[in-house]
């Protein structure tokens, strides 16, 4: 029996086609992975199937669920119990006022229909299984991005829906957790069907099943996952596979020229709230050096950056800055660029604000934009109408215009597709070397750290 059958499904805004007609059928136990770059319309497909497309978009084609035609309205009735979706931005999908356990237990209780006590027990058990036992009473804002994602996954799966759509389920997770999540998704699909939307080739490889490669709304390649990934027919697919950090070329290690120390820490302790996250961190940062920061999700990687930048008090130990540069030359790139930029005005206005504030030479903007691959037209738009990758590069543009001496890059590429991530991270490293700016690069991907950084700090 086919759980889902999609026939020539297309998404339009006005007369513009955002997603070209696509057809597939999934039976119980089958898996489909949709692989593509950011902004290629993958998420639209998921939203079209769920029936929660934003206003102003319309679909064409037919969707049949569980062997009967399903209108957008009738699909809504299936949500949670028969058809479930893992949302892309976990912190937006969770209730900010409830603890992790409370919302998971609520899902078990209300959606799956467990008795109240059983729901509480199930919630405890699941969180323990996800390695969140100690964080069960925390609210979303107290969880790290990766932890919030795990809670969201647990909630989406709690209803026991046979048909699961996962929209970028592994975004921002470290490799171990990523593997765990994918395994969990696969085990789910043994009885039901699974549609995974991802930009991560490793996830596609691991999930197996069928694979569809999408490029700007158009289906490029379609077939068995292992076959396509081992023997890609189209140039775009090859490019996508080559952009996986694992397949990046290993940089030639040249001995770095001795540069002066920019900053050093002595048995630094960092923490958030009442909790000390890490102790005895002693390291030196030289000018122009690229340092990788690795550690499990929630171990205090972001907190380290905030402490070094003076945004947060240290919990012991010393930080010595060996330079007298003004504070605006100590910059930070954020994990979620959409949250790091004002949505009220266009990007061009924001850029002009920065230029005016620091009397930056305007002629520097155009070449740097070109290098970052940012189109001029982008500046007319607001932060909410550009893709995450574009916005992250815009943030880089602003930071680099300030001639930083230190740049703390907190998972700057975790929301970018691999092709963009490869170039953005390469660019970051190149610019750092050229301008003698020290970069601290946080990533959950050990391959990325290995290929990009001179040294690694482990928390």
């Amino acid at each position, binding site marked *: 029996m086919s759980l889902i059958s999609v026939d020539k499904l297309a998404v339009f805004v006005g007369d513009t086609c955002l997603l070209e007609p696509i057809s597939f059928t999934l039976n119980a136990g089958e898996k489909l992975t949709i692989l593509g770059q950011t902004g290629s319309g993958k998420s639209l497909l998921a939203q079209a199937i769920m029936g929660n497309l934003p206003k102003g978009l319309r679909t064409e084609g037919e969707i049949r669920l569980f062997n009967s035609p399903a209108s957008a309205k009738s699909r809504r009735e299936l949500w949670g119990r028969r058809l479930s979706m893992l949302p892309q931005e976990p912190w937006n999908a969770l209730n900010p006022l409830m603890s992790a356990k409370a919302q998971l237990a609520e899902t078990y209780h209300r959606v799956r229909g467990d008795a109240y006590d059983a729901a509480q027990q199930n919630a405890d058990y699941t969180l323990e299984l996800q390695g969140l036992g100690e964080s069960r009473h925390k609210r979303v804002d107290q969880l790290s991005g990766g932890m919030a994602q795990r809670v969201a996954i647990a909630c989406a799966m709690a209803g026991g829906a046979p048909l699961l759509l996962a929209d970028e389920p592994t975004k921002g997770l470290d490799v171990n957790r990523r593997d765990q999540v994918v395994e969990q998704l696969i085990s789910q699909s043994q009885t039901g069907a699974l549609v995974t939307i991802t930009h991560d080739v490793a996830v596609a490889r691991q999930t197996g099943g069928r694979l569809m490669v999408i490029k700007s709304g158009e289906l490029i390649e379609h077939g068995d996952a292992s076959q396509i990934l081992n023997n890609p027919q189209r140039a775009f697919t090859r490019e996508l596979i080559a952009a996986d950090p694992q397949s990046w070329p290993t940089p030639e290690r040249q001995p770095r020229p001795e540069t002066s120390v920019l900053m050093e820490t002595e048995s630094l302790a960092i923490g958030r709230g009442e909790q000390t996250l890490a102790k005895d961190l002693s390291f030196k940062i030289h000018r122009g050096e690229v340092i990788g920061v690795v550690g499990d999700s929630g171990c205090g990687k972001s907190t380290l950056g905030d402490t070094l930048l003076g945004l947060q008090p240290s919990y012991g130990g010393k930080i010595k800055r060996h330079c007298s540069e003004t504070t605006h030359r100590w910059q930070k790139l954020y994990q979620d660029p959409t949250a790091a930029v004002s949505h009220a005005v266009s990007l061009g206005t924001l850029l002009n604000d920065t230029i005016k*504030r620091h009397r930056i030479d305007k002629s520097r903007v155009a070449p740097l934009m070109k290098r970052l691959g940012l189109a001029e037209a982008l500046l007319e738009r607001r932060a909410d109408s*550009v*893709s995450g990758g574009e916005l992250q590069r815009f943030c880089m543009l602003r930071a680099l215009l300030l001639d930083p001496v230190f740049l703390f890059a907190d998972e700057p590429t975790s929301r970018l597709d691999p092709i963009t991530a490869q170039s953005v991270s390469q660019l970051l490293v190149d610019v750092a070397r050229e301008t003698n700016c020290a970069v601290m690069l946080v990533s959950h991907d050990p391959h990325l750290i290995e290929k990009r950084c001179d040294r690694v700090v482990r928390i």
Partner: protein
Amino acid sequence: MKLSYLCTSQISTSRLCGAVLLLLLCVYAFATPLLSAQDAASQNLSQILSLPGGNSWFGTDHFGRDMWVRLADALRLSLSMAALCVLTSAVIGVTLGILAATGPSWVDRTLDGVTTLILALPGLVLVLIFAAIVPGSFWMLYVAISLIQWIEYFRVTRAITQRIARSPEVQSSRLMGFGALYLFRRHYWPAIAPQLVTLASFGAASAILMMASLGFVYVGIQPPLAELGLMIVEHFPYYSDAPWLLAQPLIALALVVLSCHLLGGKKAS
């Protein structure tokens, strides 16, 4: 993976209705004294409690005063009071709210204490006390109502600003060396402004109601000035002889409040 969707900033029908209704009332209130030669205070005792129609469109009251003119006078007073109160309390509330959310913690604690103190008293009682000090003074009423109303703006602004002040966007702007004014212009104000429209609409309605309540218990605006609450209580004895007379200020009051509430209603989703 967000695409730019059509950003439909449509005004909902209910908001539109509210705006049109309020505009009509304003036109009536502010244009009538310009167009009509009649005076709201001139009495004509030979023609009291006359039916609407004929010489005076809304009839005359128990002193033979023209109701069309008096109602316009009363509305003008109420609308001016509402506008003044909204403006004052919004400016004070938003300023202090931002100060409390971004300033040192003692500012926040002090302001929070003050607002809690004021909130501990029922608003109307506080206004009554003020109004009793100088009965019939428009300005005393204005001070008293504004004193009550700034708190709402303060609380909303403070809550929104606190959230944004901790967000990465503000942290990023700070790191880039931008000052407080810039943070207000680019971060705080865009988040606060949409809420202000709603707050202001409801605030205007409650200012008008408060003023009418005080008029009703004779501590607000004093006769012979026309004021909605005062008119209601003045016409009360004649409700069986001239029910239309009592109905007029009541309907006017209801219409003003309705228009404000429609205006402040939910945005079209």
